[in-house]
């Protein structure tokens, strides 16, 4: 494939980039309900439609549950669809989320991570994504504005792949990325068309057709249920390699690569590894560079994909490392560890006996600061040397 033309560079926010990403992929049906910190996406998409920049059917809905029902239904009818939400909105569409994945509809949704209900929080955190981790969706987390845009394009290539046919949630930190203005290169729409064109050469997925008697998502009894769920789970397994393939194809075409399932930063010769996700991963890289100057051999595994959990690649990245620190920007109710740490611990037999330290930080617009990360690296380092360590630390409670 020829290399893409250079796109236009603009200084725009993460939300605006979310809307551009969707528009460039030429969705046919869009329905989104505004919610802080994502409202700008819904506003911009309706402006694109009004200005004729985007040709989609823009359905005005009265809530997020309807938004997801509208797009999943349009998807079942064969349309390319898009929606966006956050927090309370994500929770409001809880049943529809599961229909979307159960019916194998390739919905692409951006979720601006924000804390969930329970204590009224209008602030950043990954709890919303975590609370939806069992809805059968692919969940990917990005670090900066350029990555939001690029990931949306890659999400369509993944979701609509005939081997996959699953909805994809692109997560980015509310407030930290949703309102973050950075210079972003916006690809030309012709190049996005070209990147998504291989989908047209694949077999067509099943869709509802007017006049033809078909049922979708029916017969959920006994082996009908088991078979459908089995196929769904197997598709999620296939997502892992597919994500890496698509990242390579994106890199070949647009010149930007993100690592696929995970990004490994200075991990090869590292003794200890920090695992983080989202915008905080950027801050971690800054601290790692500083610690490396001091002689600490530390690396970062940036978890880009959370569902399906990139088990094989994580084991490969962590095997033989002396200690691991996981920074979770959310909670796992019922376990003392943070959710990403808890899931990582399921792979302990394959990773080996190294200490795994759980850190909970960055909730509700409290930063994961340079100082916090420095402390995490120091403590994981000490654990690697056999010194005693605290298994779980809620950093904000200790301040």
């Amino acid at each position, binding site marked *: 494939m020829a290399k893409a033309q250079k796109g236009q560079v603009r200084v725009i926010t993460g939300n605006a980039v979310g809307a551009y990403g969707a528009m460039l992929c030429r969705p046919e049906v869009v329905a989104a309900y505004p919610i802080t910190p994502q409202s700008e996406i819904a506003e911009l998409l309706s402006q694109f439609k009004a200005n004729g920049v985007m040709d989609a059917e823009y359905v005005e809905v009265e809530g997020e549950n309807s938004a997801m029902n509208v797009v999943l239904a349009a998807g079942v009818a064969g349309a390319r669809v898009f929606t966006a939400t956050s927090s309370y909105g994500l929770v409001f569409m809880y049943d529809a989320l599961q229909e979307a994945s159960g019916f194998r509809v390739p919905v692409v949704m951006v979720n601006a991570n924000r804390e969930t209900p329970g204590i009224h929080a209008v602030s950043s955190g990954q709890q919303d994504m975590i609370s939806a981790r069992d809805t059968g969706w692919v969940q990917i987390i990005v670090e900066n504005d350029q990555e939001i845009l690029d990931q949306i394009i890659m999400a369509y290539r993944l979701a609509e792949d005939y081997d996959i046919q699953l909805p994809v949630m692109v997560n980015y930190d509310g407030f930290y990325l949703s309102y*973050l*203005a950075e210079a972003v290169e916006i690809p030309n729409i012709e190049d996005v068309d070209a990147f998504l064109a291989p989908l047209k050469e694949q077999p067509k997925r099943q869709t509802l057709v007017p006049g033809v008697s078909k049922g979708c998502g029916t017969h959920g009894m006994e082996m009908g249920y088991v078979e459908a769920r089995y196929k769904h789970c197997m598709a999620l397994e296939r997502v892992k390699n597919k994500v890496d393939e698509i990242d390579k194809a994106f890199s070949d075409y647009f010149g930007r690569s993100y690592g696929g399932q995970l990004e490994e930063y200075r991990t090869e010769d590292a003794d200890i590894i920090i695992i983080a996700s989202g915008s905080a991963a*950027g801050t971690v890289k*800054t601290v790692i560079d500083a610690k490396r100057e001091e002689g600490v051999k530390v690396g970062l595994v940036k978890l880009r994909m959370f569902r399906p959990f990139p088990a094989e690649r994580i084991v490969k990245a962590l095997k033989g490392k002396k200690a691991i620190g996981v920074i979770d920007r959310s909670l796992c109710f019922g376990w003392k560890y943070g959710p990403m740490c808890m899931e990582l611990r399921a792979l302990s037999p394959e990773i080996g006996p190294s200490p795994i330290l759980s850190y909970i930080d960055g909730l509700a*617009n409290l*930063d994961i600061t340079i100082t916090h990360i420095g402390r995490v690296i120091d403590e994981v380092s000490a654990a690697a040397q056999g010194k005693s360590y605290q298994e779980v630390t809620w950093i904000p409670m200790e301040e």
Partner: protein
Amino acid sequence: MAARMLASAFVIEGKSVASFPMYGFERRGAPVVAFTRVDDKPIREKTQIYTPDCLVVIDPGLLALPTLFTGLKPGSAFILNSPKKLTAKPSENLKIGAVVNATQIAVDEIGRDIPNTCLLGAVAAATGWLKLESILDSMPDYLSGDILERNIKSAERGYREVEVIKW
């Protein structure tokens, strides 16, 4: 939006920028703080700014805030929108203090109390970190027509009329 115009201006000069506001509730008039980082290299750090090199205060009422100057780096700059002059050095670590009556200039030039673009001109003059032209070149991305012209005048006046003290 002023923080974003500043970000655009720096990008025009070839720098990397990351700028974001922090506030709880999405409404006009609620207190807002905006953080802007500028560098020659790409900016990876995504946190609030605790040790600024420059502090711009748009609401002079904030001078009453005891923590306003906390964390300022030695040699830092302070730009204030106020009708009154700076009589004393408000904080140890400050090297540059600048005052401009941006509210008045905005009311004169734009017709409304939106001092932001005027203050951008003042920032350029006081810090010397970017050219006025870059700020003016960034503005058409956000404004157009008559409103753009008025804001350009406001920014130019901010640049010319800011009083800069070097301690």
